[in-house]
């Protein structure tokens, strides 16, 4: 495609195509979108983050990431759609415009580029990061690598496991780069990490049964977000804390972000038709992204209206 207007959002795209899309989006919207490179993957690929900003310095911000588990293709595809949605709706949708006039949005579409490349080239079912050869099991589950109950139950010390936590917290450059970015920014107010599938919206914690101090507010907001999501196609989500909704998992992304003081920390599991799992047909991308966007807007609006 020569522009993001002709980019086919209803198809899956490889890493190069998504990178080109990001560059086009920046070139087309220089006063709103810029591209940050927050680090490098293990194999040296840039960790690109789109910044949507109308100006200001170190404004309060919202972080959204997709694709930390590489085989969850509908998430990278949805992230691409979100990026276009933001530039399309800015100036037209009053709610988004108000958000962007006061806050920045950071969007990392391909959070695990080595893994994503590997799903396109070698193993469509690959989930983890990539590491040098030496054993049959190359990589770490980046959603078990955060310094939040690291090494506890719900993560594996076996490198061959799909939930291998890595040798130490933040050992994965894909994780450490976000950690460094979040810390250096210091003003991120909402952090939303998007996975697929099984239709859930969750808040911390995953590593402990201790309720977060903001549980009542996070629970009510999750309920509103999934209610708004369901208005489009009637898609039903479960919601609650990670440990109560899905399983005990230590070293998870949003447990760390919440412990850093980011109150509105959420993680999604996107659409599940019950027939395809990770091989969700591409005609499901846009419906999935559209309904998810409604929930994202609910969370972003709430973040804007409830400063802390």
């Amino acid at each position, binding site marked *: *495609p020569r522009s993001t207007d002709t980019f086919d959002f209803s198809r899956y795209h490889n890493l190069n195509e998504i990178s080109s899309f990001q560059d086009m989006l920046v070139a087309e919207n220089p006063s709103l979108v810029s591209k940050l490179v927050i680090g490098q993957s293990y194999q040296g690929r840039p960790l690109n983050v789109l910044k949507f900003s109308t100006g200001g310095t170190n404004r309060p911000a919202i972080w959204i990431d997709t694709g930390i588990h590489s085989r969850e293709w509908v998430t990278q595809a949805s992230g691409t759609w979100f990026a276009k949605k933001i530039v399309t709706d800015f100036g037209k949708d009053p709610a988004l415009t108000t958000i962007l006039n006061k806050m920045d949005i950071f969007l990392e579409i391909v959070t695990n580029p080595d893994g994503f490349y590997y799903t396109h080239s070698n193993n469509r079912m690959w989930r983890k990061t990539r590491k040098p050869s030496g054993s049959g099991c190359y990589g770490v589950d980046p959603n078990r690598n955060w310094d939040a109950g690291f090494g506890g139950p719900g993560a594996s010390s076996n490198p061959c496991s799909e939930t291998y936590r890595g040798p130490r917290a933040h050992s994965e450059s894909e994780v450490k780069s976000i950690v460094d970015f979040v810390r250096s920014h210091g003003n991120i107010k909402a952090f939303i990490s998007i996975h697929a599938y099984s239709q859930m919206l969750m808040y911390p914690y995953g590593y402990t049964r201790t309720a977060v101090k903001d549980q009542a507010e996070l629970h009510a907001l999750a309920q509103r977000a999934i209610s708004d999501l369901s208005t489009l196609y009637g898609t039903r989500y479960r919601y609650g804390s990670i440990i109560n909704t899905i399983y005990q998992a230590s070293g998870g992304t949003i447990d760390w972000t919440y412990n850093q003081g980011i109150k509105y920390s959420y993680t999604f599991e996107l659409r599940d038709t019950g027939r395809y*799992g990770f091989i969700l047909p591409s005609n499901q991308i846009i419906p999935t992204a559209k309904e998810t966007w409604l929930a994202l807007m609910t969370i972003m609006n709430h973040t804007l209206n409830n400063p802390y």
Partner: protein
Amino acid sequence: KETFEGHQVLRIVPKDEVQLALIKDLEDMSELDFWTDVTDVAYPVDIRVPFDSLMVLKAHLMSQDIDYTIMIDDLQVMLDEEQQEMESAARLGQ
């Protein structure tokens, strides 16, 4: 390129706490790939099962009176379709 001929994805819905525990025990079998995890009674667990493990696993589930459905009959067939669709879309784009 790794292929997945004959791999099936089974969807298991545990009926009670006993079945839940039995399914959870399967997580120790490294050849199984849990697409969705064991959470609670009545919530589905999806497991990708390599062809070589299918017979044994299905027999085990039957012996424990655990019902399952086949969500994906042959994963590689679906991956081939996905690949063809991507290539077709790329050609159209060009």
